[in-house]
């Protein structure tokens, strides 16, 4: 059924945030969101009128998956400003958490961001990613453990050693 354009527009900031977290790159992320919106509009007849956020995020996770696979890339959080400008976060903390995030596998980042940042339920996330709910839980647990290790272990910004 037809999608309410205004409702779709209200989802865009969150779609961009998710794609940004997945790719680590502003322009690639926005390309993916644009692609997602085109697909949503072209396929709106398939929308059943329930849970638009879930439906659109499912499209986005598929776009992200196929794009990232096709270029075989890990996110490159080269500059923090590439993710987002402003905000209250301390820059060093922001660099550290994003660097740690980029070290997670795509499989771990997806359910982790969908639940912890985008606020989807475990059930919705399992449906979106088309995996059992137990798999979602264990991937999130692995993501959390890996993040903790990275944040506690390695120095946040590698120090240049001067001889």
């Amino acid at each position, binding site marked *: 059924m037809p999608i309410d*354009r205004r409702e*779709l*527009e209200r989802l*865009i*900031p*969150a779609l*961009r*945030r998710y794609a*940004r*977290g997945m790719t680590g790159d502003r*322009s690639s992320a*926005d*390309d993916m*969101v*644009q*692609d997602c*919106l*085109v*697909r949503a*509009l*072209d*396929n709106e*007849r*398939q929308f059943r009128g329930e849970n638009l956020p879930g439906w659109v995020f499912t499209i986005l996770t598929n776009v992200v998956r196929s794009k990232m696979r*096709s270029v075989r890339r890990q996110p490159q959080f080269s500059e*923090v400003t590439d*993710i*987002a*400008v*402003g*905000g*209250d*976060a301390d820059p060093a*903390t*922001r660099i*550290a*958490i*994003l660097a740690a*995030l980029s070290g997670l596998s795509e499989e771990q980042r997806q359910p982790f*961001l969908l*639940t*912890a*940042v985008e606020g989807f*339920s*475990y059930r919705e996330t399992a449906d979106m990613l088309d995996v059992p709910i*137990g798999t979602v*839980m*264990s991937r*999130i*647990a692995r993501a*959390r453990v890996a*993040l*903790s290790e990275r*944040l*506690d272990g390695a120095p946040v910004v590698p120090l240049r050693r001067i001889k």
Partner: protein
Amino acid sequence: MSGAERKITEADFVAFADERLEPADRAAVEVWLAEHPDDRKTVEAWRSQTAALRAALDPTLAEPLPAAMAALLSSPAPRRRSWSMPALAASLALAIGLGGGVFLGQSDWLGQARTADRGDIIAKAGYRAHKMYTAEVRHPVEVAANEEDHLVSWLSKRVGAPVKAPDLSAQGLKLLGGRLLPVEGDPAAQLMYEGANGDRYTLFVTKSDGAPPTAFHFEEWGAIGCYYWIDGNLGYALNGPKDRDKLMAIATRIYEQIS
């Protein structure tokens, strides 16, 4: 059952950190954490991860909507245009060229409704894809023209019918490449061409879905014009800068090469 007797799993820690547990389960986990400081430290660290991650990513939410996304959402329904004389003349010529103009005598109203519907879908989807990908600087195409053979065979395979990349050098256009897209859940191909002045044209091709052949129809969306038609088991939409004569010439050239 006392909370402390409940078996606590890793999933409980995750759900606890995410604040997704039911009150009874939450109480059970709290009892456990009170007795296991290491686990409590882990879960607290997980909560601060979430806070730090949100603080790092949330500023994205405040960014202005990119113009391309706004344009996509506000793109008006195409303005329906009546047939222009040159287009009618050209399609008559094509009809005769096809041998008898059988399709102009189409009297099956159901078939006509199906054609209008499918043609409309193809024109709109072609336009959206045009608008989206011609604006791309870094990734205008998925497979570039230097792999034309691969491009054509890949798209033909996915679309399910022979997709050809017409040679438009006579019109001053060179093939940039193409990509695969969905239209109503079906695969569609987009081929992109570029003129010396940087103008981009796209040819959108997908299955006609049983719709009978048509002649050329014209639609326009702002500065973009589109000729679309159905031929055999494929439907086509040519989008480009709205110069009708030039678009007609290109559409005719395409038609000559693919039929």
